[in-house]
């Protein structure tokens, strides 16, 4: 080639050669970073692990998830016969009485799938748990890498379907938040500390759901000519602004949903009474 930029013949392309490949600068160290590069993946892994442990305990517990007028977001909607009866609440026994496990498991699969395939969480757990890579320019420990080209990780491509499922779940949690404007006797026009907790939670859930990259694509990102679709362009811009905060919203909503559940647990287990604001 005229510019002499054809790639050189490779001498060492064995899998796992990486930065120590025979053609590259001879540096034995896997990385030369001097900053605390391990802090972010370690904190991420610890945070995710804490949530997994907590949510697993609560999802399988099948107890202390309803205290009028609040229902835990982990158990809403409640789709089996063995749910606690919730007045005007999200009881839809479509699974009948054959389901003997915790009803939370029936519904949590959707938010779990949404977050598991989320573009932010993928980055978080690929880095935090799988060290692929642990941090930028820090060599990963794996000999081979096929990314998201093969099963099972090729299934990450169904993220948009989990987004579609996450929207009705968010609608139902919004309904639960409206129900929280009742008191323990189901009379309307009241508000407790739990109502505030639910309001913050649902705001963060919606912000996280709508800031999704798939949502951004569906509302307008897929278009070639924004000028022909001014409304979708506006919506795309709005979702784009939210999308820039997707990581923060992912964490904030993860914490808020756990806190909302924990609040209901404390009430239902009798640890304390919901302070009524009015």
């Amino acid at each position: 080639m005229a510019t002499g930029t054809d790639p050189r013949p490779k001498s060492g392309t064995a899998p796992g050669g990486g930065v120590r490949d025979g053609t590259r600068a001879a540096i034995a160290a896997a990385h030369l970073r001097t900053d605390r590069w391990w802090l972010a993946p370690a904190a991420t892994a610890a945070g995710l692990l804490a949530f997994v442990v907590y949510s697993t305990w609560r999802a399988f517990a099948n107890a202390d998830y309803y205290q009028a007028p609040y229902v835990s977001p982990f158990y809403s909607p409640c789709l089996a016969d063995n749910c606690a009866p919730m007045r005007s609440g999200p009881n839809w026994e479509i699974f009948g009485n054959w389901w003997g496990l915790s009803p939370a498991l029936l519904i949590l699969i959707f938010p779990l799938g949404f977050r598991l395939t989320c573009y932010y969480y993928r980055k978080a757990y690929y880095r935090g748990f799988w060290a692929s890579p642990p941090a930028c320019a820090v060599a990963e420990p794996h000999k081979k890498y096929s990314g998201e080209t093969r099963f099972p990780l090729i299934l990450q491509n169904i993220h948009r379907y989990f987004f579609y499922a996450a929207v009705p779940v968010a609608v139902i949690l919004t309904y639960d938040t409206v129900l929280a404007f009742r008191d323990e006797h189901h009379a309307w026009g009241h508000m407790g500390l739990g109502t505030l907790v639910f309001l913050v939670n649902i705001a963060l859930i919606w912000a996280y759901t709508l800031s999704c990259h798939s949502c951004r694509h569906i509302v307008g990102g897929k278009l070639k000519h924004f000028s022909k679709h001014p409304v979708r362009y506006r919506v795309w811009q709005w979702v784009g602004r939210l999308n820039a905060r997707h990581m923060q919203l992912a964490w904030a909503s993860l914490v808020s949903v756990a806190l909302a559940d924990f609040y209901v647990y404390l009430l239902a287990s009798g640890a304390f009474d919901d302070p009524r604001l009015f």
Partner: protein
Amino acid sequence: MSSYEARFKVWRGDSAGGGLEDFAIEVNEGEVVLDIIHRLQATQAPDLAVRWNCKAGKCGSCSAEINGRPRLMCMTRMSVFGPEEVVTVTPLRAFPVVRDLVTDVGFNYAKAREVPAFVPPEGLGAGEYRMQQVDVDRSQEFRKCIECFLCQDTCHVVRDHEENKGAFAGPRFLMRVAELDMHPLDAAADSGIDRKRAAQDEHGLGYCNITKCCTEVCPEGIKITDNALIPLKERAVDRKYDPLVWLGSRIRRRGK
């Protein structure tokens, strides 16, 4: 602080071998790493090989790894390091080394040639292209790329797996595919080129696991992952993995 003596470790060698060499060198207020490398050339290592050009962060020539992080030497201020800190400068570690701080970045030119060029719309001559700014905004963000190849260097898909270089174009050239696919006047689809499908099938988009290192190192601040790679993944999903989109496009085609 006007000037001090800094400790540097600079990788010297070639494809046959080499190592980090220690230097003690004067640093003055306001200088960048490239200034120090030039001072080393002028005073202690006249044969030190380094590629550079504009000294303004616009040519993309002086890419290197400074304390293990891919950066432009001309845009890395010495003031970000403490006077006692040892500053280590190595060549890009994803590409074959030529000599000292110079690497063979030919991989990137080979990948650039694999991306089909812009296809002008039929019937429009030079000077007749018209487009709305809102339509071309997205592509223009990617045109800020200075081709420093820091994103290519830091991407673990090829940095840690030399064997993936054949299948994976790297963030810079997947961004090029996105730029063209989003371009309001690109008529590739009319000429039988499916950029969305090609991104996945020919340029290795599926290898990207969106860990965002390309975005972290981009000296132009291009949101490579959020604005190019993820939208391109979603477009590939439209083509390959979404039965509803596939069904919709079949019905629309039948209606025409």
